[in-house]
């Protein structure tokens, strides 16, 4: 197992290097002089030159590339051009909020998606099956930003059930530890903050969960159908096991394996969706951060966010691969 993890980590290295190279090339290609952008529109020629010297922008490209790699490994992305705060610190602050939203969405997707898929599979070709699959298809076809707008209008504006946006109620004090609001509330046993942050989290998390939920439901259904036809299930039934037990203990357990892979693959879509969801709900997070960064040509912000998210994405997929190997005894970790 350890060998497998080490081997997978080593295999991820070229991809990580590729990501960094791609981001470096991307930054080189962005039109405009970064020195001017860093110094600001009103800077004098001398100031621009000083910036160029300070950031090594007048050095040959290979040297700049080496500097870039160093900044990537040490997570020193410099200061944001807009807020003049260190990008690394801002990223840490927003990272937790985005991950919290994504994980909450994934949990909702699993809690609803898996049972829906099981019900559809065990009631194959009935109205229940067709209904579930139609809802799933609609779920896949709905843009998250529209689902967000519609639900905000109905549930927040009309019915007043949820806040219309934000991440926690104003006036609620919360000591920050991890940058994830719900987690921090739990860690500091701050129940008012917990209630408020959960209240702010539920609607965006549900909106974000719709697409992965639909995909998980469809996958669970087809995976269950495949498993339900296996001999060992007939055996389980033949020996008089209750139907419910056959489905949960024998069928679902085996059908879950491809679903674990799907979860890892969902994360890229989930993060992208989270960026849009944050925009719709006005939640501070990586998405709003990078979108604002692009608008302002904030190079350090773009570089930092793209790198952190891509690297995080590779690591999540790595984790899923390892989990996959751990739950499926047929996979050898060599």
């Amino acid at each position, binding site marked *: 197992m350890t060998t497998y993890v080490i081997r997978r980590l080593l295999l991820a290295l070229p991809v990580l290097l590729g990501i960094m190279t791609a981001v470096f090339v991307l930054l080189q*290609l962005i039109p405009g002089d970064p020195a001017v952008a860093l110094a600001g529109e009103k800077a004098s020629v001398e100031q621009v030159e000083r910036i160029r010297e300070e950031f090594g922008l007048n050095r040959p490209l290979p040297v700049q590339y080496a500097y870039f790699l160093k900044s990537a490994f040490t997570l020193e992305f410099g200061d944001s051009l807009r807020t003049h705060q260190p990008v690394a610190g801002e990223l840490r602050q927003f990272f937790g909020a985005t991950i919290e939203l994504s994980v909450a969405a994934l949990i909702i997707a699993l809690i609803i998606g898996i049972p829906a898929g099981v019900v559809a599979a065990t009631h194959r070709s009935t109205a229940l099956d067709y209904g579930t699959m139609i809802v799933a298809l609609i779920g896949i*076809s709905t843009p998250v*930003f529209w689902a967000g707008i519609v639900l905000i*209008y109905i549930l927040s504006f009309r019915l007043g059930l949820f806040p219309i946006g934000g991440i926690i109620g104003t006036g609620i004090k919360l000591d920050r530890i991890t940058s994830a609001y719900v987690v921090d509330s739990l860690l500091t046993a701050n129940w008012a903050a917990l209630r408020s942050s959960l209240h702010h989290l539920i609607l965006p998390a549900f909106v974000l969960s719709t697409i992965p939920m639909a995909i998980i439901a469809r996958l669970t259904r*087809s995976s269950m159908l495949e498993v339900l036809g296996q001999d060992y299930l007939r055996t389980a039934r033949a020996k008089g096991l209750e139907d419910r037990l056959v489905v949960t203990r024998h069928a679902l357990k085996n059908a879950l394996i491809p679903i674990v892979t799907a979860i890892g693959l*969902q994360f890229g879509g989930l993060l*992208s969706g989270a960026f*849009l969801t944050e925009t719709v709900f006005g939640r501070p997070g990586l998405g709003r951060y990078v979108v604002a960064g*692009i608008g302002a040509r904030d190079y350090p912000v773009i570089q930092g966010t793209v790198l952190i998210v891509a690297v995080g994405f590779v690591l999540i997929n790595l984790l899923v691969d390892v989990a996959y190997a751990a739950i499926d005894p047929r996979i050898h970790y060599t």
Partner: protein
Amino acid sequence: MAIDTNAQTTRAATGQGGHILSPSVPSAIEPTLHGAGRTSAGLWLDAGRRLVHDPAAMVGLIVIALLVLVALVAPAIVPHPPNDQSFRIKLEPPGATHLLGTDEFGRDVLSRVLIGTRVALGVGIFPVLIALIIGVTLGLAAGYYGRGVDQVIMRLIDVLLAFPWLLLAIGIMAVLGPGINNVVIAVAIVYIPAFARIVRGSVLSIKEKEYVEAARAMGQPDSVIIVKHVLANAWAPIIVLSTLSIGQAIIYAAGLSFIGLGTQPPNADWGVMLSSGREYLRDAPWLGFFPGFAILITVLAFNLFGDGLRDALDPRLR
């Protein structure tokens, strides 16, 4: 009947022996073999017959046909000029003169939704076409030549796949600048890996077949073998992936427009309309509702048709 129309998943899963459009699909449709001296009409005819008897797919196809029609004749059928502003009638609710209401500049929402069909179909179809051409070429090269070529191409694809789609698109848009043409390029690049991986998978299994070996033994050049024997037998999954990707590409492009990177004002685009709908949500909910609903219907139609196409071309998956 399987599984998934989400391109993000398709993107990645196809390369990992995934469950979506597995590389083994072509083996189910071997009767199309040109090299074996049979005509391919049989396969496509069979598939067509199955498709016609799939009501869901037919509903999808009819809606797509209607949308194409609307896109073609939109300028002639819009009740009001879509870019005409009039502050006297801004944010009017749906009514007799403006069936779907007016926006914050007094522009007719129905007219803008109708004319927006053109952008929507464009940003759905063109990126997928571009990705298809580039991705299929890369996949053919990687799968057919193997070794070094395969290594280089697939590592590049791995890097592209390492970025969540929106981040990749945002990065590309940062270089190219905002605008709908650049959205097309960005979304196309997002889709290249899916096509490259699915084609590579098909090619790997097809190139081991006897008819390819026979063609090689007869001294046919690589280019002829690739086009006539390999590509001709790899079309089915490519077509299915294309159809399913169009719907997703429309959502992606709308997402980029929604955050302000796509179509620039004053042109009508469903994503941009949704964005202003978000701003005026409390007072003018129709502003965001209708363009979003139009996206849903369009994407749903492509997904219905794509699902049907997959079932028709690969009956084993039913």
